[in-house]
């Protein structure tokens, strides 16, 4: 066998065997198994800047999307509605748009036409997507618990997923009570 093939096979086997058992479908990873995500800061569509750490102590849902992605445009209004419904319970929904220069002009139109009120973060260079969504799956959603650790990830959107989305969020919100507001 040629060295190139050996190296590729070795890398494949190494990475496959490195897999650890995954949490059961639609159930959160046990808190002890959850890992934090690194903080990031991105500009928003309306000209502000948002840092992930601004939502410290809250359950955070991060959804990667693009204006040309049909399932994303189906999922976003549902996430927006869920975000509003549980905002006072400590939920923050952040949508991260990854449109390239060619299509970024479409982003605002999608947001306005869907009457979305959630923060739309712009990741034109893919700086955050390359760390949190390296496969560039679309839509790709991460669910973070109040400690900023990943409890769930989900790729794609299919009819029926909206029930799972809400169930995951409700379970994460119920895990620990919201920290008392600082004076």
């Amino acid at each position, binding site marked *: 066998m040629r060295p190139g093939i050996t190296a*590729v096979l070795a890398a494949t086997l190494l990475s496959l065997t*490195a897999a650890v058992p995954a949490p059961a479908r639609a159930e959160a990873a046990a808190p002890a198994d959850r890992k934090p995500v690194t903080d990031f800061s991105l500009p928003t569509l309306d000209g502000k800047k948002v840092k992930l750490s601004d939502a410290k102590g809250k359950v955070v849902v991060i959804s990667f999307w693009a204006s040309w992605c049909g399932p994303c445009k189906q999922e976003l209004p549902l996430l927006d509605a869920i975000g509003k419904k549980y905002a006072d319970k400590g939920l923050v929904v952040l949508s991260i748009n990854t449109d*390239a220069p060619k*299509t970024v*002009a479409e982003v605002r139109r999608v947001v306005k036409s869907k009457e979305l009120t959630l923060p739309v973060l712009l990741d034109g*260079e893919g700086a955050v997507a390359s760390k949190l969504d390296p496969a560039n799956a679309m839509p790709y959603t991460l669910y973070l618990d109040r400690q900023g650790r990943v409890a769930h990830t989900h790729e794609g959107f*299919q009819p029926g997923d909206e029930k799972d989305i809400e169930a995951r969020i409700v379970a994460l919100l119920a895990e620990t009570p919201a920290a008392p507001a600082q004076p």
Partner: protein
Amino acid sequence: MTRRALALCALSLPAAAAAEGTAVRTNERLILEYHLDNGNRDETDDHYGTLIERLTVTGSAENLTAGADVNGEAFYSAEDDRHVNNARLERMFAEYTLGTVTLTAGDFHKQLGRGIVLSLRKVDELGLDTTLQGGRMLWAPEDHEFEVFAGRTNVSAYDAPTQFYVPEASDVMAGGSYTFRDLGFMNLGTYAYTQRLRVPLIHEAGFDHTSASGGFVEFPDVLDALAIYVEADWQGRKSGERRTQGKAFYSTLDLNLGGFSALAEGLLIDDVKVQGSAVEGSPIVFEYAQPPTLERIDQEFEPNTDVRGARLRLAYGFLDGNLSPYVNVMLRQNEPEADKPLNQLHGYGGVEATYQEGASRVNVSGGYRRHTQGGETTKSMKHGEIDLVQSLPGPHALHLTANEEFRTLNSRDYVRGSAIVGVERQRLGGLSVEIGNDTQKPREREFFVAGIITWEATDWLNLRTTGGSQRGGLKCVGGVCRDFPAFTGLKFEATGRHDLL
């Protein structure tokens, strides 16, 4: 310098893993293919097997993030010697944030403005990925962002359409940018960079180089109804013994009033070209910019280096935005100073709808596109598309995606299209049939049929198997087009995400 940066990155991964509150994640994609005769009358791309491995490891601890991409390809029984067995460390980076300062060493993507003079980013669908390998420093106090960067271009060593090995371009770049964001009222940005090509066009003429600068002003939200973006760029270029200057102007105006929305785009690019070194033996021309094209994302377009044009898109949202008819008109002119400039017109319209409380959606569109030059029509196309997801009882859904293009090229008619129809079951996967047709080349295969099975095995593992034949052709994504050969054979793909630590 590069090796030192890579060594720093390599050292930082275990350091990240050893620290408190660390996370190390992997993302793996494994593709196994066997290619049968794809009917293109070229035997060199038939009867061979491929193994493609893509492994991404990302680790983070406190203020440090580090990552690496390990990629590899192996070929079985491939005739063309440009299919090269190879395994390599494709990307590596370490990023450290201290207050308002972020330092990056290794590979990073870079874009200036709307990508007219520089855009190094991923285009996954086309297998393109160019980074700058070097270092950068970002200082972002409050409303200001200062950034400087330098490095050499690092092109992905594997070309997805041809499956050929791609030699490195390794062109050197350095630049900086400043952005001012003023609490949502206005954003201002300015930037500049210079690039030197590793391989000169004419060795006796010395190194080829490009310098560019530009700036933008953006009003992201005027009275909650209007957004305006204006960008201007300048470029100076030396190629061989020729020196040229180019300029570009790009603007968008986005109006949203109630349910009505209007998006206007204007583009003027006057001899702006950002290419990398020509590498011997490679069919690829390295493009370091992705300017807006005014076309749809998946639409082919004429060269975007000397062009002017505009487009207008009007839409109205009914039923809380759940029903939205739209029309779009685009006019472009390539090489306007030439004796016979190429004029392009593209008009299309359609309707987007979501229903059943968001569980179902449909997008139906159709249009007409025409190219004329010297008063004669050189190319035309009538097209129609549908993308339908219909929720069915229980956790099932019907998914139909189809497009058909009736084209004329230099007075010859041909038809090209594809349709994918399938049933999906939530949390499980889907079963689809893909049918394609392409009559452009009568001596080649014109009809294609493939079956696709997708299986969401777990939350962290997705599997996909494709068997049969799939249409090739020009594929355009995000301002880049590549010609893909047809595929006939069997393909297996596994994508997994794992938390290692």
